[in-house]
């Protein structure tokens, strides 16, 4: 915690950490929104959420290694992961969707392990990145550096989010999704093909993660085993914000990004992952403690 002294002595570092955190937080919020969507509509906690992000990252990395700009990776990863999501739904998810929540957690955990190990075999466990070539902004007398790609990533993440919200609010499929989320049986009776709704929801989620993954590999790195951390981040954000609460998801996502940024600086980079998983435990215990005071239980 010696770094704490640095922060107190030179507040400008705080600004750096804050900006870094908020910029990456938008991507966290986007992935969390996808998880909340699947959770709210299908009552499935998608443990392979982070692996979809990782896949999107690797697709973009591949394009980059073939000389294509990583920005092209965003739509490509979106489409490819949409198909991956659809396939996964048809083969696995449709069979666990109306069962015990634990079965779906275990099934998606299995998919998560499968994908991690698959990418490990194909790409090794090395860390990769894709240069977007946008240069860096220097602020506050060169004390704060902001790579332009991170700003672009932030804007794109929020844009995808806005498009999604419009889709959910204005389109027929969006309506069908919201109806199914509220009462699947009623939706079916009214003629909505809930199976198709589930497939679309799950695929959209995978696609969102893919696009987010493209942003991640540009602004940061991709690595075969980075997935679980993203899953846990999304889960924390959804738990704190609540499933229907979109503004909450955005705020929680940005907040988590900032918190991680500070934690990485204060505790050291080697404890970054430890921080994320410890925070998960703390958040769940704290929420439960608060609910118990009202004699409710975190279900």
């Amino acid at each position, binding site marked *: 915690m010696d770094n704490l002294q640095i922060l107190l002595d030179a507040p400008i570092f705080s600004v750096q950490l804050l900006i870094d955190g908020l910029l990456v937080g938008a991507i966290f919020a986007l992935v969390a929104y996808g998880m909340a969507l699947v959770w709210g509509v299908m009552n499935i*906690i998608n443990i392979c959420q982070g692996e979809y992000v990782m896949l999107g990252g690797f697709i973009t990395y591949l394009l980059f290694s073939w000389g294509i700009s990583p920005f092209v990776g965003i739509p490509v990863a979106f489409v490819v992961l949409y198909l991956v999501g659809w396939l996964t739904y048809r083969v*696995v998810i449709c069979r666990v969707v109306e069962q015990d929540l*634990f079965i779906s957690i275990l099934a998606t955990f299995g998919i998560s392990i*499968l*994908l991690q190990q698959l990418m490990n075999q194909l790409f090794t466990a090395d860390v990769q990145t894709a240069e977007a070539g946008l240069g860096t902004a220097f602020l506050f007398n060169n004390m704060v550096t902001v790579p332009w790609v991170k700003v672009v990533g932030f804007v794109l993440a929020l844009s995808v989010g806005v498009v999604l919200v419009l889709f959910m609010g204005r389109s027929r499929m969006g309506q069908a999704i919201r109806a199914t989320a509220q009462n699947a049986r009623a939706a079916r009776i009214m003629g909505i093909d809930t199976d198709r709704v589930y497939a679309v929801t799950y695929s959209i989620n995978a696609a969102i993660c893919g696009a987010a993954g493209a942003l991640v590999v540009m602004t940061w790195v991709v690595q075969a085993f980075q997935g679980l951390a993203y899953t*846990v981040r999304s889960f924390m954000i959804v738990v704190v914000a609540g499933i229907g609460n979109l503004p909450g998801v955005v705020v929680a996502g940005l907040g988590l990004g900032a918190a991680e940024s500070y934690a990485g600086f204060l505790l050291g980079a080697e*404890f970054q992952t430890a921080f994320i*998983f410890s925070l998960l*435990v703390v958040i*769940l215990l704290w929420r439960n403690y608060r609910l118990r005071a009202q004699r409710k239980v975190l279900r």
Partner: protein
Amino acid sequence: MKVILRYTLIAIAALAAPLLFPEYQIQLAWLWLMVVFALTWDAVGGQMGYNSFGNVFYFGLGMYVTAVVQRDLYYDFEEYETLAGSLDTLPPADYLTGMSLGLAASAVCAVLCAIVLGSGILRLRGHYFAICTLGLGIAAGEIAAGIDYIGAGSGLVTPVFPDGLGEKGLFFCYLLLALAAVTFLVLRWLYTSRFGLAINAIRDDEDKAEAMGLHTTRYKTIAWCVSGFFLAIAGGIMGDLIGFIDPVDTAFAGATFGVWMVLMAILGGKGTLWGPVIGATIFHVTQEIFWTFLFGWQRVALGALIVIIVVFFPQGVMGFARARWPDRFGHRVESVADEGATQ
């Protein structure tokens, strides 16, 4: 009578196997470890309904505690770090003393942790419990990777197995067999007592159990303590067998051991006594086959296997057997007309 005969046959087979197939001694040792994994998971998961992804926490804890006790009893810890590997091996008596004290310490630490952590974590329900324990297991590994006293990211070397105690493989095989047997018998005793019914009631409807005045907190905590107790001892033993402890891959191996525990219990049939044993055996054999024929891709195959079992075979072997032959495997489906019953 049949029960005693069955157990005796199994005991004889288990004791003879490493002698008859010496090249498989280490594999057998791992088999007994898998049995302990599956049984301890099932006690909390299948029998009590608290599906944990973090039981590996106790395994890793036990591994480190035993190793540290063994090291600190006879060496200076900094000297150990620099000279690890080229230190003289301990005399057998010292090795055994260190291991025994280490295992005892591991067990005590595990029980204390179960009580302390359980006071918070066991109040979570269902999937929140599952994911919280997942976080616990992984966080522990990442934090351990940052503590120099236990070797940090470079890991910790355990004392070398000394000469004079026989074959290393045989020693550990029997040690783990003993642990597996004790675990099995203790759980068998618990399941047939009031404790067993209580944890089943908690699984079937915890709110109802509370509304009937059951001391659910007590039972949940004790179940986790029992689970942790045996896992910690298993961890301590495995630390010595493997020889090298990596915080994330060996000790707090959430993505491997942590998940396998769950899978084995489900494969064999969760909530039954023999289910985890059967599941562990099938899983271990399958894993060995995967390793031999799919090396490199065996982890990918395991991921696929998890999905297949969970989606297509969630009732497991025992569940399947009970559905197919209910009378042989424990449940009546017809009423019993008894004399003396009035309506």
